[in-house]
């Protein structure tokens, strides 16, 4: 009877939302003991993770099962390199046969991603932009993200940058960085004529900038590349991209406006919007890559 009364009191307190008031300590202790025996608890991720051996065995088993299933799927898939596979259909034929006159790009891949399926590529440029903005949100110094130790380390690094000789890196950087950047620009500008394009070229330019910054210190970079320029270039590039694509989507879907002249395929000034789009993407990517580097080392651009 006593037990029953107690239980009733507990339920009443629980419904009233005042369980802590009612002999709280005892209640919490018994409760925590109970929870451990509870069968529900045994299936939660934490307890499985606590048992390292079981967890390891399970993950290996799942992966092995996965590989097994996938191998049997691969067994059933169309043959590798066979010209009569389902992927060799009218879509690919049109890209390859009418691609030159419809997009003006000699590089069919560039023509495909920047003209036929440009919406995907626009989203992709946005992914990159969002990633760099989230890294800014995470790593840029502010009052929440600030530690004395890190400041001291950064000052030490600056000191080394200025005073250490490091001749191999410095001379190498001086000679190589312009060459790398030049090659990157070449890849960007020839995106519609040869393999490569905005993204690969931009990455190469970014790598050149990173080499220069690591050889001569970020202070020197900041003379011509600040956070303001970074934002302006990124936003400007994306806005140009957005404007070009909006124009072509709008006119294409509504059958209005005039088409951009395609030029003679093979010339550098050809292929309609593909060249400016490649340049925009290249600028964005180069800034983004250098931005990642700068934020990762100093927490600022």
């Amino acid at each position, binding site marked *: 009877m006593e037990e029953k009364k107690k239980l009733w009191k507990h339920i009443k307190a629980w419904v*009233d939302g005042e369980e802590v008031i009612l002999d709280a300590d005892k209640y919490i202790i018994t409760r925590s003991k109970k929870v451990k025996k509870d069968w529900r608890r045994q299936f939660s991720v934490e307890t499985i993770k606590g048992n390292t051996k079981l967890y390891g065995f399970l993950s290996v088993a799942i992966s092995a099962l996965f590989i097994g299933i996938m191998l049997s799927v691969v067994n059933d898939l169309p043959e590798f390199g066979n010209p009569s596979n389902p992927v060799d259909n*009218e879509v690919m034929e049109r890209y390859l046969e009418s691609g030159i006159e419809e997009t003006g790009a000699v590089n069919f891949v560039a023509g495909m991603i920047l003209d036929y399926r440009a919406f995907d590529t626009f989203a992709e440029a946005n*992914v990159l932009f969002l990633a760099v903005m989230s890294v800014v949100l995470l790593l840029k110094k502010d009052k929440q993200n600030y530690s004395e130790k890190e400041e001291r380390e950064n000052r030490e690094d600056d000191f080394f940058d200025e005073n250490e000789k490091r001749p191999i890196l410095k001379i190498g950087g001086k000679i190589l960085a312009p060459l790398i950047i030049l090659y990157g620009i070449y890849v960007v500008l020839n995106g519609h004529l040869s393999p490569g394009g905005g993204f690969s070229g931009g990455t190469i330019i970014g790598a050149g900038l990173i080499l220069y910054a690591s050889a001569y210190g970020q202070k020197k970079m900041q003379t011509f590349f600040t956070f303001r320029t970074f934002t302006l270039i990124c936003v400007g590039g994306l806005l140009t991209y957005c404007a070009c694509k909006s124009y072509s989507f709008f006119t294409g879907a509504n059958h*209005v406006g005039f088409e951009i002249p395609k030029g003679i395929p093979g010339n550098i000034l050809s292929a309609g919007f593909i060249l400016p789009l490649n340049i925009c993407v290249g600028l964005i990517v180069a800034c983004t890559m250098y931005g990642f580097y700068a934020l990762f080392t100093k927490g600022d651009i």
Partner: protein
Amino acid sequence: MEHINWIHNIPFFSIFLAMLCGIITALVKNGKVAFKIHSTMVFIVFIMSVILLLSVVKNNEIFTFMMGHFPAPWGNELRAGPLEALMAVTFSLVMLLTVSGGAEFVFKDVVEEKQSLYFIMLNALFGSMLALVYTNDIFTAYVFIEVNTIASCALIMAKGTPQSMVGTTHYLVISLLGSGLFLLGLCILYSITGHLLFPQMKEAILEIIKTDQYRLPLLVVTGFMFIGIAIKSALFPFHSMLPGAYLAAIPTSSGILSGLVLKSYIILGIKLIYCVFSAEVMHTLKITEVLFVFGLAGMVMGSVYAIRERKMKRMLAYSSVAQIGYIYMGIGMGSRVGMTAACFHILAHAITKTLLFLCCGSFVENSGGKEKIYHMRGAALRNPLAGIGYTVGALSMIGVPLLAGFISKIYFATASVYSSGKMAAVLIVLGVSMVLNALYFLPSVIAIWTPEKGKENKPNFSVSPLFAVSIVGFVILNFVLGIFYRPITRIIQMSIELLAQ
């Protein structure tokens, strides 16, 4: 000069407007200005979506919009019908109300110089959700899923506390696993069909079913894609990312993530079911049955976890798991009636859960930053408006008549009659889950209305006007959905009919 059909341009305009605002906001330093840009954008999208909805309902049509100069199998396409337009209206309305109500949390919790970055993420998130709703191309869907993932992770960690970083890491790893599986499924699907756009894929898949050639790959592909979507939308066994993330994030972010982001993946799943795999194929491959079972499990287990939980935000997160279970149960019934119920529940849950999260944020604020429910005693007395909002939301989740949650439960029960062999299971689990819902929502409602002994509980009516507007808006919406639900369900039925053609 041909005649331009401006209404058909609305999906394209909405997506690009959102993305454009996201880009422009990077130039703005001040968070308040960014907030104004964001609200204006969402409002314009809302107006446009309403026009689109009225037009497609009047004409009873689904149209495709060509993105660029090249028609279907070569270029990208958008596609809009009543379902898409209805979801766009809901998303923009909920987004508008949530962000205007939750702006004060953003201005309080996010570091001042980074507030504008938060709004970049919101704009991009909104754009990507619209794109997921409107897309007619599977690769576009994948890319926008990634946009969505990065933006939602950024929203979670915007608070900058260590806990939010841990929550974000957990969320990021699990979401990336989900999108990896989706991508793998996409690749195999491309290799056996040779297309990337929904209608062409559907034809190829029907051909495959007829010739029986790539049957095993097709089964595995469907499995992977739906596991990917289930991970992304936190169906029961994959829900472990939600509680930590929602607890650590700003209430605004939690509300948007739970109310809208999870739903956008489900809408993508529904579109995949009807436009790519087609309902019959899903039925022959028994995928709907699996979804049904996991939905039922999620309904019960989510509630059980929620009862055990002592922190309010975590409790709401587990309750989301249960509600996602409801939606998957509706999808898994495999009938059009079940799908209608699921779609209605998406709307009901979107407006209710965001309301609950906003009120919960306000309670946490006026009980001195304490998260546990018994620290929030009397919180509703200190802020009566939020208290009323929370009560209405909780009652709607339990399924009290006149509120939105009740209608969706009625629809689920009705739908169970039409699906043979599932009726008993649905009705029993529905009843159990309603009781469980009441078991965890009622104590929290009672707790917030009980005055704390020995403490003054002075009501504070000086809430910010935007917060008041948004709470009142949500409450009214809840009643509207609960009383005048007929036109909405008719639109949903119509759109399901159109999709299934």
